[in-house]
Each structure stands twice: as C-alpha cells, then as structure tokens.
C-alpha cells in the first residue's frame, strides 16, 4: 500500500462518522437514495422471479472463475492482444498510475476524459496526471459534480448522493454557467454542453471495466448516461483500468451478470447502455480509438487467492447493494469510511487490500446483522468476513490499549469470587459522582465510548448475593422478602 494513502487516513472511523452524523442533509439524502434503490431492487428482482436461483448461479460463476483465474485471465490477455490491444500488469496502485502516465505522456495528451471507475479512484490517477499538467475531466454527471467540489465519491453507484441541487448550481456557476436555475433539466443541460465539448477535444479516454470476457478479449461497460460510450468512442486513445478479478469466462456468463448487476445496483432490468469493446477500431472505421491499452491491477487482490476466509471477496461485482441495506452506511454515509470503497464491501475490502495499520478499524463499522449478505447478488458472506477481520486484529494484537487492558482486567476480576466481590464494592462507591437518577452519565473518562451517547444503568446499591443473604434471613424470620433495591 502506498504511503500517500496512509496520509489520507489521519482520523479514525469514529471521528469521521461523528462529522457525517452532524450533516443532516447528508443523512437524509443517503437514507432516501438507499431506500429507493433498495425498493426498486426488490421490485425488479421480484419481477424476474427465482431471484435465489439467479444469485446461486451468480455465485457459482464467480467462484469458478476466481478459482481458475490464471487460466481465464491468460485467455483474456491473449485475445486482447490478438485484436491489437496492449496489455500491462501492475503490482500496485503506484505502478498502475505510472504505466498510465507513461502512455498519456507518450501521446503528448493535454486532455483526458474519464467515465466512472472505482479502480481509477483506487490508484489516484487524476492526481498523478494533473501533477504533470494534464487536464482530467470526470464525465459521469455525479463524478463531474464531485470533481468540481474537490471531493471523493460517497456511494459507488451514486457518487454525489450528498450534494443538494443548490450546491450543484453553485458549483456549475463557478465552472462557467450563467443564468442557471436549480431545475434538474437546466443543470443537466449545462453539464451536457460543457462535457460535450470536452469529449470532442479529448486526446485520451479512460474507463474502468465491469467485466472482461475471456473467450473474446472484450471489455464490457454498463452505463446509463452514455458518457462511457463517448469516452470509448471519440478520443484517439482508450485506456482501460481493471482489477485482475473482473474476468468472466463467456458471454453466456455475461447474461447472468447482466441480469444481476443492474437490478442490484439501481433496480433497472438493464442499464441504458451495455457496451462490448473488442480491440481498437478496425482499419477502415471512422470512429473508435486508434489504440486500446488495458492496465490490469493486482494491488493486494492476489493475496486473497487461496485464502479460505477471504478469496470470495474477489467475487464482488461492485453493485453497491450491500451499501443500500447497511444500517451503519445509511447513518454515516460513504465519506466516514475514509476509503475508496465504502459500506460493508469497503469495510472488508479496504483492510484486505491495504495491509498495515490504516483502515484496520473499518471492520468495526458494522452491526453484523447480515443484511449485506442477504442483498449480495453473488452471495459473498461479508458478515463472516467482518468477524474474521476482527479476530485477525485481535490475533495480531491490533486492538486498542484500553480495550486490551479492559479485557485483561475483566479476566482477572472474574476469575476469583472474592476478588470480584471486592471490586464490585469499590465500583459502587466510585460511580457515585456520576449517578443521575439511577443512570451513569459521563461524557469523559474511560466509560465515554459507552456513556457519551447513552446512559449506562447504575450498579445496584447491593449485589444479588448480598440481597439473597438478607432475603434468606428474612424468610427464616418468617417475613416477606423485601424489595430493597
């Protein structure tokens, strides 16, 4: 993992969530969208029928492909090259970015247009290109808004989910729009005009890859706006960045993913455009790129292969369904995760792809309710992985000092009855200054994590043992056991 990503991770998930929770609009927007996406997914998967059979088929296909990734990736690469495409391999984010920079510089490009791709966020390609004076323009409407705002996407399907229309109007006005209203049509029309000009002038088009088909060497893109088509049609050079796990063996398998992905992502039966690109344009064709470059990225993915607990994370088709159902994501939004991939998939994927200290607190941003697994179109057991990651943190001694001390203390106190009794008697005295109407209220000190946002019940004045003793004495005296809390 690159050190520059470490630098971004300066706060913990708790700090970032606290920030997000203060932003009422963000919470409202996230809830609105995720509910809407969830509702539409339910409707469209119900209409399809046999959703469980489709999910199981999706799982089987992804599982077979990843288990034989060496074979299918080889087949894909050979077919790309047979069609005149160039293929590059990158061990990490830095290498991928350098490879792309080299291609772009060789073309002496001034302007690059991009369609939405999470992998390109992962390798921070915009920053690398901009540092070399190359203009990079995001062309997905949501990404364009985010880029103008200088922010990171907060949802993998709807990146600008947290922006209001008046904020968008201001951003567009700053970008040169005049007499703009906050009407969606108006805003969209400005983006269409502004970006059309960029598409036509751009030297390089950059896309991700939803699926790479081994049997033909094709790159498949699912988009709704048409910017993916623009970017892969108009500029002379097309650069694809893909995670090494994006492979599918055949087009027959693509039919399954074409039924699962749009439904899970946006509740559509199929996205408006599904583009299948095989090599650069043919010699006599008057549009399409002259050159097609495909950069295949590892960046921590291959380390999951052969790992019983985590190999399945490579089955992910990046649909975002697990975000939409996650109670934690729905409260704190995407930015709180502080990583490229938010939500349950982000909480699993990010610490796996980035070994080291940063992001190791993400697996705790989950209530382990399992809704993510239920929603996942390829049945990835995300909740099990979250538990496994927490266990790994404990095994590697990566828990907080206070937490470790607390558990050690717990073991010591609970091991001996006498010790337990003495400690509880002490605690009853110690809690006195914090008591308010039978509850412990404290916004500082060691109990803060629990008591800052809710009250802990006070310890009873006497323990059950003590009460039981006095009840027994009372019974012997023939009295009713008194309720003496």
């Amino acid at each position: 993992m690159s050190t520059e990503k470490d630098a971004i991770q300066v706060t913990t998930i708790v700090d970032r969530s606290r920030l997000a929770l203060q932003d009422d609009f963000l919470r409202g927007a996230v809830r609105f969208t995720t509910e809407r996406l969830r509702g539409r997914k339910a409707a469209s998967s119900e209409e399809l029928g046999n959703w469980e059979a489709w999910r199981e088929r999706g799982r089987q296909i992804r599982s077979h492909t990843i288990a034989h990734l060496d074979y299918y990736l080889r087949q894909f690469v050979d077919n790309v090259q047979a069609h005149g495409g160039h293929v590059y391999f990158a061990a990490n984010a830095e290498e991928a970015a350098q490879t792309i920079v080299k291609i772009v510089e060789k073309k002496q490009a001034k302007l690059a247009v991009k369609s939405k791709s999470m992998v390109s966020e992962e390798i921070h390609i915009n920053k690398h290109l901009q540092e070399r004076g190359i203009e990079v323009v995001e062309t997905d409407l949501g990404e364009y808004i985010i880029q103008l705002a200088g922010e990171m996407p907060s949802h993998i399907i709807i990146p600008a989910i947290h922006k209001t229309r008046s904020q968008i109007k201001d951003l567009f006005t700053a970008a040169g729009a005049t007499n703009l209203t906050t009407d969606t049509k108006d805003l969209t029309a400005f983006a269409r005009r502004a970006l059309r000009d960029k598409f036509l002038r751009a030297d390089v088009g950059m896309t991700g890859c939803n699926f790479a088909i081994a049997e033909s060497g094709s790159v498949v893109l699912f988009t709704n706006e048409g910017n993916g088509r623009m970017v892969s049609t108009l500029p002379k050079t097309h650069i694809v960045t893909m995670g090494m796990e994006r492979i599918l063996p055949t087009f027959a398998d693509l039919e399954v993913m074409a039924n699962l992905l749009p439904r899970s992502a946006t509740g559509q039966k199929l996205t408006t455009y599904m583009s299948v690109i095989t090599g650069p344009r043919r010699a006599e064709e008057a549009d399409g790129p002259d050159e097609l470059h495909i950069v295949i990225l590892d960046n921590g993915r291959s380390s999951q292969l052969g790992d019983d607990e985590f190999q399945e994370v490579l089955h992910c088709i990046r649909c975002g369904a697990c975000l939409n159902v996650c109670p934690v994501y729905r409260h704190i939004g995407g930015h709180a995760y502080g990583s490229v991939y938010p939500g349950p998939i982000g909480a699993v994927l990010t610490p796996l792809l980035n070994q080291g200290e940063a992001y190791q607190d993400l697996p705790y941003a989950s209530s382990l309710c399992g809704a993510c697994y239920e929603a996942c179109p390829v049945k990835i057991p995300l909740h099990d992985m979250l538990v496994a990651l927490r266990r790994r943190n404990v095994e590697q001694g990566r828990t907080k000092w206070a937490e470790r001390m607390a558990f050690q203390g717990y073991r010591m106190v609970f091991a001996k009855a006498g010790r337990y009794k003495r400690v509880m008697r002490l605690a009853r005295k110690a809690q006195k200054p914090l008591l308010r109407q039978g509850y412990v209220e404290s916004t500082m000190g060691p109990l803060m994590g629990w008591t800052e946002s809710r009250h802990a019940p006070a310890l009873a004045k006497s323990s059950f043992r003590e009460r039981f003793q006095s009840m027994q004495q009372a019974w012997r005296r023939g009295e009713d056991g008194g309720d003496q809390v």
Partner: protein
Amino acid sequence: MREDEFFAGIAKRLGRSSALTTAPARDVVGAPDFWQSYALPEEERLEKFCVELEKLGGSAVVYDSKASLLQGLSGFLETLQPRTVGMWSGAFTAEFDVDRVLAGREVVYWGTDGANSVARMAQVDVGITGCDFAIADTGTVVLMSDIHKGRSVSLLPSVHVVLIKSSQIRTRMGEVWAEVLQQHGGHLPSSIHFISGPSRSSDIENDLSIGVHGPATVYALIWQE
C-alpha cells in the same frame, strides 16, 4: 510488473506450480435452465419489446409494410424538422429505402467525410440507424459497429431513430450472444452496443433526468414482416 511474474504469482496463490493452460471443467455455464428455455412466440416478442421500450421512456411503433414505415418516418421528421439528419451508409439504406423520404433534407451519410466524420455527426440533430438484433425482455436494440455502421450515429445526435425488422427480435440476451458467436467466432466487431431507451441519470438529488450525454429520444419503428 512482468507478465510471467504476474501469472506465476496467481498460480502460486492458487496452489499450482505453474499457470493452468487447459480449460478447466465446468458444470454450470450461463443462465439457469428455466431462463435458457424462456422463448416467447414471435407475436408476443414484438409486443413485449414495445412495452419494455416504452417503460424506459422510448417509443415504439409497429408498421405492417415497409411503405407504411417510411411514411411514419417521414411524418416523424416532418414534426421534428431537424436541420440535418445523420445515417448509417451501406446495405442498410438500400434495405429500407430510407432515401425516398429524405429528399430535400440535408443528410450526412456515415463514413463519407473521412477524418471529419465525427465532427460532422456531432452537428446532426437526428441519427437514423438499423440494428442487428433487438431483445424483447429488456426493450433493447443491439448495434454492431463496422465501417458503414458508425458508433457516433446512435450516440451524438439528440434523437436516435432505429429501424427494426420484426424478425430481428429475440426473447432474451443469451440468444443474441449465441448467434453473434456463431456468426463471428472469436472475432467480434470492435464494438457492440446494447441500447435500452434514452440516456438517463439520477445523479442530481435522485431526480431522473433524460439525455445527459447520449440521445434524449429513442424512437423505434418496427416493420412487421
């Protein structure tokens, strides 16, 4: 990173001494059986295609002869009054006789402007194309690019008119792939586009907007043979 190292790394993690070179056996390929046997009769396919496309905000009109389809197209252009019309060239034009209803209009035929083709198509109001297949299940048209069938014609103009023969409509996507692979083997055209309705986005406060980058109108005229 070097290619051989990249592959050696994958093979090693998967517990193999070198990368697999023979196709692994598969017990399941593609869609579940119930889906693979899903095939609507021709009449229903046509109807389903129209219903699905309309749901997406596109329009579909069925004509019982080529002559009436051309009349429909002529009427549509009469209403829209585009300054320029762009069109696929080659066999498609002859097959539908489109020229007959374009007399008196400025028409840009794809590929006839050489290096300037894209720039010219960017100025066009209405793009007219045929299709290679259509899919009833999703209201989709499938366009495969070649020298006469430029990608830009269905992409750059604000209005996309697509002429379809009812015999081109299949029930589901899988049938299209089977036929494409049979026709082309592993050598697919440089691009194949599955287009389902007009360009759309919900990126501004979840409010649906149409025609973000691609065409805002998709108008399908179907000739029922």
